[in-house]
């Protein structure tokens, strides 16, 4: 039953060689290093996947409609620095909520320009990347250290063995999975990416659904920014450069098509974990930074090549 549903999601976690690649990586990691299977390292892996995870999930929504959101890295910075800055005067939950709301607002503007004015998503969100980064600096040129220790809770604490942030990510992924597979809006979003005109002719309000995806992306980027500021304990206006590339990579490694209409929550999760795993392993093996970069690229290509046969002809 659940397997059937996962199949409906055309998940890549279920599909052969992607899982094989994963398992091989894990076995190699566990047997050849002492530190991989330690609690500390597993916790690190979980923590280090939080930002990419949230961003990739929002990106997935946008990509499904055939769009793209390059502004997420800047939104991370803006949301984080606003939350940290406001926490000096406001209750922490409110300050954080305002930070996230700033992310939603950014998403709203992006979404309006793309959905109603039909501008190309790439240019709109690239312009947003620049503008929002500028706004983060305008808000505060220098890093902001939240004074109240409570600010650190969401990014630092654990419930049992699980970091709070990781639990949030898991919850958000579960929600997104239900949203995309079991709600009308979710299905419409996927359909829009497949054939926008067909969906319009079926009487669906296409612009509204597209708008929603950008707002979700903005929301998750805002959330990621707040959690990151909380985790680092300091909010920097410079944080988040090139985060969008990682997020997009996670989606695409997970089987999403940038043309829209194809992509899955579980696949994206796989992509996120895989990326974190590659970084983690290269560090554990003490591969030097430049060679890390060389190898990371090669591994990504290898993984994509390995699972090629299943989708592409």
């Amino acid at each position, binding site marked *: 039953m659940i397997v059937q549903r996962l199949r*409906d999601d055309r998940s890549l976690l279920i599909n052969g060689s992607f899982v094989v690649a994963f398992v091989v990586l894990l076995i190699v990691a566990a047997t050849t290093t002492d530190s991989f299977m330690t609690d500390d390292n597993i916790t690190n892996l979980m923590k280090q996947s939080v930002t990419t995870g949230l961003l990739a999930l929002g990106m997935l929504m946008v990509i499904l409609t055939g769009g793209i959101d390059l502004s997420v890295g800047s939104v991370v910075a803006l949301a984080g620095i606003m939350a940290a800055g406001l926490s000096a005067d406001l209750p922490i939950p409110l300050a954080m909520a305002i930070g996230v709301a700033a992310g939603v607002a950014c998403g709203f503007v992006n979404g309006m320009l793309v959905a109603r004015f039909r501008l190309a998503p790439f240019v709109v969100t690239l312009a947003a990347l620049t503008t929002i980064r500028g706004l983060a600096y305008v808000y505060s040129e220098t890093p902001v250290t939240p004074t109240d220790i409570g600010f650190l809770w969401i990014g630092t604490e654990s419930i049992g063995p699980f970091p709070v942030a990781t639990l949030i990510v898991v919850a958000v992924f579960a929600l997104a999975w*239900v949203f995309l*597979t*079991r*709600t*009308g809006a979710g*299905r*419409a979003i*996927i*359909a829009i990416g*497949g*054939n926008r*005109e*067909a*969906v*319009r*002719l*079926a*009487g*669906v*309000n296409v612009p509204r659904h597209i708008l929603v995806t950008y707002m979700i992306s903005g929301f998750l980027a805002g959330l990621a920014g707040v959690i990151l500021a909380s985790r680092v304990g300091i909010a920097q206006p410079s944080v988040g450069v090139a985060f969008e590339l990682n997020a997009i990579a996670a989606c695409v490694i997970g089987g999403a098509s940038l043309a829209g*209409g*194809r992509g899955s929550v579980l696949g994206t999760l796989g992509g996120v974990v895989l990326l974190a795993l590659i970084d983690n392993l290269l560090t554990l093996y003490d591969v030097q930074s430049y060679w890390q970069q060389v190898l990371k690229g090669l591994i990504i290509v290898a993984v994509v090549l390995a699972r090629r046969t299943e989708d592409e002809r």
Partner: protein
Amino acid sequence: MLSLRGVRKAYSGVEVLHGIDFEAHGGEVVAIAGANGAGKSTLIKILCGAVARDAGTIAVDGREVALGSPAAAAALGIRTVHQELTLVPQLSVTENVLLGDLPKRGGLVDWPAAHERTRALLSRTGFTGVDPRTPAKRLSVARQQMVEIAKAMASEPRMLILDEPSAVLAGDDLDQLFALIRSLRADGVLVLYVSHRLDEVMEIADRITVIKDGLIAATSTPRETNEEEIVRQMAGRRLEQIYPDRREKPGRELLGTTGLTREGAFEEVSLSVCAGEVVGVFGLVGSGRTELAECLFAAAPHDAGEIRLAGRAVRLRSPKEAIAQGLAFVTEDRKGSGLVLDLSVRDNAALATLPRWRRHGLLDRKRQQAAIEDMNERLDVRPRTTSKPVKQLSGGNQQKVVLAKWLLSRPKVLILDEPTRGVDVAARVDLYREIDQLTRAGLGVLMISSDLTEVIGATDRVLVMHEGRLVADVPSAEADEELLLAHSIGVAA
């Protein structure tokens, strides 16, 4: 029930509807006929809210309506099957049929119920044999068309508009469609039916309205008129004879196969097409004709058997090699594999012959332009301007551009898959004459068609496929519709 007054529409300054006045009532089947580019699809797009009219009023049940969006039209019970397929390829049949209206339980989509409802809809429309879970892109064009029809039936329509639904349907499937239309008519639904197949129109319609150059040219009942008359109204000229007289002696074999097999598609196909010959291929949906054509053209691999060109066994690896050997292939899906919609008529027409236009390393655009204009003249492509994006042409004219592309490549063997889909009668006559002339000069033609009269009338002999096998080879002079149908469903001796 439906009333139009002075409806006008212009695309980027060029008016294509010049003031349409039109009435129709519930429980009526009104056929709309007209030449390619007359404005039929445009009128329909206005009625379903897909494009906005520039002027005029539309009233439903005596009340004026805006029809600002597809949703507004749907709310009035207006449902449409468009000329071009509008499915989401990667989604299942169920999702396509219930797009935007999936059944829910507790706020979430109830998939079992959705599949069940789709199955029920498909069987109501008579199109059984399509699995609701299959992704739409895996269906043949004909089955996709059935899904479109089921989709239009998803919520009880009060007015059903069908824009050339029959272009890809044949035999039983067409009968199913007619049965559906009749039952809707009995329920008081208004059906608007656009088709270039006039025999169908005479059979199903209560009234026939002819549109010519964006104006209503005539309206009559089938009793008052006949096919010839309608053609005259559409084309403004009388057509003496639709199919040319063919009395050719076939020459030597140009294309032949022995035991050609592609697993899951067709088996043991042995055929031959000779110089000066037009060979028809008839069969039901899914009988494997399209896949056979693709293999002949090396667009898809085959698993066993031999292909001969001019008597020599060849092993072609790509369409490029096939073209170099003098093959040409007009596919059945002009939107999916025939045309680059965003590009101009000229770019599309020149696509298969790019190396030919080279002079000093550059395209000789004068020569290219002259050749294309000449071909468009012969095929009567409208409008004649070659710089228009091909997507702005009417469906039938797009099809002519595909033909122009391949005729320009001066093939020795021309493979046609449903070549007259959406092409109006007058243009079809032009095409048949063109083929006739080319075969006189030694061309061989393999013509796949689901149109029985065409496959008999325009060919020298007809091959019939049934479930992937060639089951009959009948000289056209001896063929009749019953016989071919019987072969195609596997009941003839």
